[in-house]
């Protein structure tokens, strides 16, 4: 062959190969979509991440990621928080599908870094950074229920249960960043903006539970007709929502319940408590969530041999709160055992009954009277306080007649005992004594021995001040001119 002929032949081959790439790429993309393997299937594509991975030729990613981790730990030791955050961002750009780093570093930012800062506003900023960090992780890994759960957990636990939660919840409420306060409502499917961190927790927990359910369904039904089960070489272990994870499924109900609890006291600094129809509805929703959890069927972990066959019983936790069914022959001993065990593990009877008790008109009214009475007590308006306490306690006693489990609960007894103790004090000041058969008189002794306060109630922690009742502050926090209510009870 002459040179020219060779050139033409090679040229033709190149063009043919090039042409063959188009249908091949299309087929490959189709396969990727079917097996959920492509980047787009895993999550949103990040140009910067792509660029960095390309630049490092893929292979050096691990080494650079290791180096960046070490630098991040050094930054943490030197209290160089902003560099820590930027190093951690770089690592996630290099390895966005490495789930542990999203979980670990979001927790690191929201818990470890936040605790090092003194001012609550700065703590809030770092908690927010932690949440937004793991939300980016969710964007990159849409099918991971773990990251969704971690987001929900930080909203719920760090903002809701930390020592500064009354201030943090206020900062969350005032935050103008609407994207940060949005979740997709599980029932209606539309994005809603809420101003309470517990509501955000509820939304994200629900999403996590739904993802697990969808995943379970997908695994048994498949997304396409003849889909093969993919064997991953090194699959990310799923932390949350495994079949035996009962506590996981209680989280949406818990978040909603804590939202309702927070509504009926000043759990957000400067925001008055809400009662009436709103509170009732929220408690009713909480009840609905608990029942939704309760009626869900779980499979017992043990295998029973019945009629010569190996069988796993189907357990419903709600049965425990239904004495007729629970003690009847409808349930086997094994079912009774697991239902009772899991119910006490999740405290289901308590929560269910509490929601029922608080959702009644009497429950809401009693709570309102306690709240207004406490405010009056703290501002030394003793007549008002006495009247409210008395009326409230009577209604509360009447309400709790139907709810024995909640009535005997220690936390409830402590809260109620505090009201009774304050009422007795007022009476003593007025020169009277507590009547003999006064409701909840038996709780007095324990209440007097207990000096602790409710850390999630701003009136208890800070008293009635311009800051707590929402008026503009006349002096900076911490200045000696601010009036302090008498400490203790």
């Amino acid at each position, binding site marked *: 062959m002459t040179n020219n002929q060779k050139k033409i032949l090679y040229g033709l081959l190149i063009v043919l190969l090039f042409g063959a790439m188009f249908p091949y790429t299309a087929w490959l993309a189709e396969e990727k979509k079917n097996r959920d393997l492509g980047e787009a299937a895993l999550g949103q594509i990040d*140009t910067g991440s792509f*660029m960095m991975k390309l630049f490092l030729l893929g292979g050096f990613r691990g080494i650079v990621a290791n180096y960046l981790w070490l630098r991040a730990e050094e930054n943490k030791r030197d209290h160089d928080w902003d560099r820590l955050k*930027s190093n951690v961002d*770089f690592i996630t750009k290099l390895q966005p599908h490495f789930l542990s780093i999203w979980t670990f570093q979001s927790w690191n930012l929201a818990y470890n870094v936040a605790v090092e800062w*003194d001012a609550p506003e700065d703590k809030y*900023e770092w908690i927010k950074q932690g949440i937004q960090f793991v939300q980016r992780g969710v964007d990159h890994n849409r099918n991971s229920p773990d990251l969704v759960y971690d987001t929900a957990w930080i909203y719920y636990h760090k903002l809701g249960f930390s*020592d500064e939660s009354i201030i943090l919840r206020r900062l969350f409420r*005032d935050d103008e960043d609407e994207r940060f306060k949005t979740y997709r409502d599980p029932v209606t499917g539309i994005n809603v903006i809420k101003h309470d961190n517990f509501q955000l927790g509820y939304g994200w927990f629900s999403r996590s539970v739904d993802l697990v359910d969808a995943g379970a369904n997908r695994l048994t039904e498949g997304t396409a007709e003849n889909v093969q089960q993919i064997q991953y070489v090194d699959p990310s272990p799923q932390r949350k929502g495994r079949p035996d994870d009962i506590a996981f499924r209680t989280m949406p109900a818990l978040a909603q319940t804590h939202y309702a609890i927070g509504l009926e006291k000043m759990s957000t600094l400067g925001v008055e408590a809400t009662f009436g129809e709103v509170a009732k509805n929220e408690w009713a929703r909480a009840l609905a969530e608990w029942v939704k959890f309760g009626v869900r069927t779980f499979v017992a972990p043990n295998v029973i041999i019945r009629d010569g066959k190996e069988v796993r019983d189907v357990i419903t936790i709600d049965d425990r709160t239904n004495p007729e069914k629970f003690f009847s022959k409808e349930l086997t001993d094994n079912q009774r055992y697991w239902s009772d065990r899991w119910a006490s593990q999740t405290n289901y009877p308590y929560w269910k009954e509490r929601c029922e008790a608080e959702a009644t008109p009497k429950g809401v009214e009693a709570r309102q009277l306690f709240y207004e009475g406490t405010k009056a007590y703290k501002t030394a308006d003793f007549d008002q306080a006495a009247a409210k306490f008395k009326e409230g306690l009577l209604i509360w006693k009447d309400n709790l007649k139907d709810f024995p489990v909640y009535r005997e609960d220690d936390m409830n007894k402590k809260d109620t005992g505090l009201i009774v103790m304050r009422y007795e004090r007022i009476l003593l000041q007025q020169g009277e004594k507590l009547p003999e058969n006064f409701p909840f008189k038996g709780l007095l002794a324990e209440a007097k021995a207990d000096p602790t306060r409710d850390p999630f109630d701003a009136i208890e922690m800070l008293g009635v001040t311009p800051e707590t009742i929402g008026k503009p502050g006349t002096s900076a926090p911490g200045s000696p001119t601010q009036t302090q209510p008498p400490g203790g009870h």
Partner: protein
Amino acid sequence: MSSHLVQILLWAQASGAAPAAQNFSRWRKVLFWLFLYGEPAFTPEGLLGGWLLWIRGISLLCFVCWVGAWIVTAIKERCVARGGWFDYVGLAAVLTIPVTMLIRTLEASKQMPVYAVGPLLLTSLLSYLVLLVIAFWIELGLWRTILRFGKRADVLVLVGMHLAIFLGLAVGVLMQRSDLLPTFVPNQRTTLGDGLVYGLRLSVTYMGYAILARIFALLIGELLAMRSRRIYSIAQLSVHEANRRMWAPWVVLIVFALVLAFTHWFLQPPRAAEMGRLYVATLILVCSLLLTVMVTILTPLSLPTDIQQQTIYTVVSKPVRRLELIWGRMVGFMALVTVLIAIFGAISLGYLWRTVYDTITRTEAAAVKAKNENRTRDFAQLMEQADQLRSRMAARVPVKGSLSFLDSRGTPHAMGIDVGMEQSTMREPRSHIEGATPAAAIWSFGSRVVDPFSPANRPKFINRKIPVQSFLPPSSVEGLLDRMLEVQFQIVADERARAQADLTSGEITRLEGGITRNRALVEKIRAEYEAMRQRADDLEAQAAAAEAAGKLDDARSLFRQYRALHADPITIEMTFNVYRTTKGKVGEPVLAEMQVSNPHTGKEEISIFPIKEYYTNRRVIKPETLAGSLGDLRIEVRCVSPTQYLGMAESDLYLLSSQGNFGENYMKGLFGVWLQAMVLTAIGVFAGTFLSWPVALLTTVVFFFAGQLAYSFLIDFSRQSIVGGGPFESLIRLLGHENQLSELAPTAGVIVAKTLDSLLMPVMSMFVYVVPNFQALDVSNTVADGFAVGWSTMLSNTLLALAYTLPFSIVGYFILRNREVAA
């Protein structure tokens, strides 16, 4: 130079014993300087120390290179190593070295008992013998080769080296005689032998000086023959080569622009408060990386490709000196780097201005909105963030004091309480003071402040004087007050001196004259001061009247005039950290009390304020407090909140002398990058003189990584303080999955490895000093933190960079001179 003082004290002590002090002291001074220039381990502080370190290092390097070069020639020309008896003896000596190390390792791991021959250990005896034999062999080789092949100058150098040996021995013996030998235990008895051994140590350095003199003589001819127009043309050639062959500067510019344009791909938007810091550090890092990569690729390629393509003939056949080739190339590349840095600086400053000031404006707007909506916490937070960002985009000049503490009982200490916070050894130590106790952190300013770490019976003084003129301009009311008080203090001091007995009449007249003059001066200044103060008060009254009358413009201009007559209030900035033992009242900050007192006039100011952790807290004091201070001040900080602690380091509190100019400071930061590029250019050109281009490129890259990333490791390595042994022992540990701290069982392999390590490590640790300390040239952290880079810092960095650049380029010149440029 306190150790200098200690030495002088030692000398003074010793000379005090001898009555004929005058003649002796001159000799002692000579001896002292000979000691300084010879002893490699002792370095005084300051510029002198740096110079000594450098010259000693260079001379040792010259010594090694010169002797090595001649021995190589000797072997090549068969003057030695041709089977003579001395060759066999030398070989036996060389073989004895590993045997000696083996014996020492066995003794160290207790596999064999320690032998001694007379007063010496076996290993020491063997080492001395080996050294003697090898020295004799080298002597022989040198004499034979130089007498045959060397020029007269080389023979002179050899003679000079032997003179240097005698000088070293003499100095050693003299020092021993005068009881001035440095010993491990003070007042240990030293023998003549010790003096001789010490003298040998010094003589190695002196021999290096002899060789250095020869090298300087060689260089001087070359330096005088250089012409700037030839350097300029070589430089022009390098620039053209860089531009046309590789489009290097354009590539770098485009990559820089791309990175800036798409920063949001790589950088998540950080918190507003420290955004400036992150961006500045990142931008300087990007500039530095791009430029060093460009230099690393360009410089080692230029000479080797010339040699390979034989275009070097066209250059060397012209009357171009070899040194001009080297320096011309360096000048060309550095010109390119300078232009690029100027462009980068302009672009990144523009980018920073736009982004950061945008953020500041937005944050302040959000703060105003929060205030209007009654969200007090948000308002305070946003204002703090904008403030912090502003303070980072400055070039602050701090005036720092010396920190000491009082503990909870009021006893003075050098450090406060350790709360268990993990601390980095690279940073200043932090300690804490307890709240609601007499515990205090005290910053002392002045020209003679006692160093808190010096022992109580031998206090050391440090200078932390406040430049009062920069705070109280002489033309202001407070400046005049300060001047007046200063003169009054002088009068008091003079009167006290006058009151002393046994003064000469000359001194009395001088003092009295001074007192009279100063009294007149005080009256003059007092008159000026009163007049100016009156004028200022009048202006203030007029301004108030104009404001009351509604003439706001007039009021403003009058008020400005009033302000111009007074000095600005003095800002004290501090960044403490808070350590809480209980949460306290939720949302309540920790309070600090600051007491600023002028020790001479007794004026003081006390204030109590909340501390915001990780932000720059700012307090302002009246300028009159500083008047009459003579540069002295005392600032005490106490923690007011009970059960809480405040933590501080020495640099955490300072007086703010000026805000400075951020743009200028940023360019100073880029100058640090310029210096790094200069050192790398020298290394690249040096590598290109004798290596092929891939190896030269790799060498430059390795130097860069070693100096930038691994420098601290290399320093540990050179001090042989690496945990887990040297390379061979580490290999065993790695393969056996042992950690660095466990004891290895003394098997044969381990013994051999330890032996090899003890042979290798001292040699390798010498080479570590050849690697330049790139990290020290990097001032980007100072710029990012918003502090000014001082001119003295820049000068010392420049000298450091030159200390590496010059030797590399000179060595490159010698290599180029001696090689055949045919590829």
